[in-house]
């Protein structure tokens, strides 16, 4: 302790206190204040930038979600449209089939009716011709038969004979 006290120099203590005080003041004013301010500013800048990046990320996520939603909707719409088209197609085909059936049936019936009437006309014609022919033949036969007296008499005889028999 005594050695320490003897070593203690008042002059050095004086200079140290004075110079350190001066140094503290100068460093405070010209070094630490601007340095700490610059560092703080930079840190705030980094914080802001990070926050902005976070916001951008969120925004991006929202946008992605939105587009995803839109895509889903579009897909669903397309699906619905395709389904509808398929249904319409089926309906059209079925309708066409039905209509064709009806039309065909109608045509067949018409044809049948025509055939029937043609047939009837033909039969009537044949009938008339046969009758005319028969009359002609009968005329010719009768003319032949009634050409001489003998035969006429004989015919009358036959006919009378039939009547008697009846």
């Amino acid at each position, binding site marked *: 302790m005594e050695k320490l006290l003897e070593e*203690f120099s008042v002059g050095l203590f004086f200079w140290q206190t004075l110079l*350190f005080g001066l140094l503290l003041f100068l*460093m405070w004013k010209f070094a630490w204040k601007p340095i700490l301010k610059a560092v703080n500013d930079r840190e705030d800048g980094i914080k802001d930038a990070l926050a902005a990046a976070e916001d951008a990320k969120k925004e991006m996520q929202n946008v992605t979600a939105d587009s995803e939603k839109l895509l889903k909707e579009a897909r669903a719409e397309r699906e619905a449209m395709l389904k509808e088209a398929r249904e319409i197609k089926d309906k059209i085909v079925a309708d066409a089939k039905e209509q064709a059936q009806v039309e065909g049936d109608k045509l067949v019936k018409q044809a049948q009716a025509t055939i029937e009437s043609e047939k009837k006309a033909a039969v009537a014609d044949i009938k008339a011709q046969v009758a005319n022919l028969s009359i002609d033949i009968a005329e010719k036969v009768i003319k032949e038969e009634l050409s001489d007296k003998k035969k006429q008499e004989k015919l009358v005889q036959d006919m009378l004979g039939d009547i008697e028999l009846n």
Partner: protein
Amino acid sequence: MRKTFFTRFLLIAALFLGQFTFASETKEEADGHGKDLKTEIKEYIAHHLQDAHDFSLFSYTKENGEHKYVGFPLPVILWDNGLKVFSSSKFHHGETLAEVDGNYYKLYHSKIYKTDAEGTIHYDEDHHATNVKPLDFSITKNVVMIIVTGLLMLWLFTSLAKSYGKNNGIPTGAGRFFEPIVLYIRDDIARPNIGEKRYRKYMPFLLTIFFFIWFLNIFGLTPLGINVTGNIAITVSLAIMTFLITNFTGTKDYWMHQFDPLGKSLPWYGKIPLYIILVPIELLGLIIKPFSLLIRLYANMQAGHIVLMSLIGLMFIFKSWLGSPLSFGLAFAISLIEVLVALLQAYIFTMLSALYFGFASEEHEHDHEHEAEVAH
């Protein structure tokens, strides 16, 4: 933790050293003339540890036995019935008296004494000089180093501060090395110990004291023979500043804690017998805290210099193929450790100062919160 490791290491190193010197002592005494060298080294170390009135880089002895010093003199400023200013070259490194205005001054063991014309020094029984010591405000070697360190710090950190403006808030050059240290002191010393709200006002002091001690410690490791932080006057001054700042920035809570440590937990009549002991202990603690600071820094730097110089001195004492390389290796290892100790002591001083500031500026927010709750 780290600190105890280093002190332990130094202690062990010092113990080994003691054995070495003891062993060599007996050997040298047999030789007869070795003792001269030993006392010379001892005196050299003692001289080095003290402040000097001139800045001598090294000295050597000429063939004719004349001591030659290489360096430059410094101004001596004395207050002895008026201001006396003269160059320290008048002392011729203690070999001659300096005569100023009819007064004679003698440089004896790095201290200036007033003597008569013959330079007689009077001693008491303990071989202490009893001559009058005039008040010595000389610009000594340590003062020069303080100025050099101060200028260095100003130059380094103002250029760092300026580099922010030039380079978009990013440091350039040496600032790239020092900025992380500044940030470390802010984020790992000031913030956790003082608190987020109040740390800002202590930052300039903490930063200044850290770099001041660190730079001077590092200067102490150069071969220029500088020992500023190992000087008691320096550490006393630094510790007093911490003490003053601690107590001038102390809050009401801090002083309440000093004089009324138990608070509302005990009725006043119970406190009286306790406080007779407790309050003086608390007040003593105020003094002991900075005292431990100044002794720690002083002793660590002083011890480091003694160990290192003794090991270097051993090289000259051993003068053998085994001993000299061994002490060289040890000196090398110790100087590496001293580089760490230089940083560590600066860190500890700053850290503990921050801790004391933290105690002093603490406000017990829990109480306020509690009161607020009650008010609701």
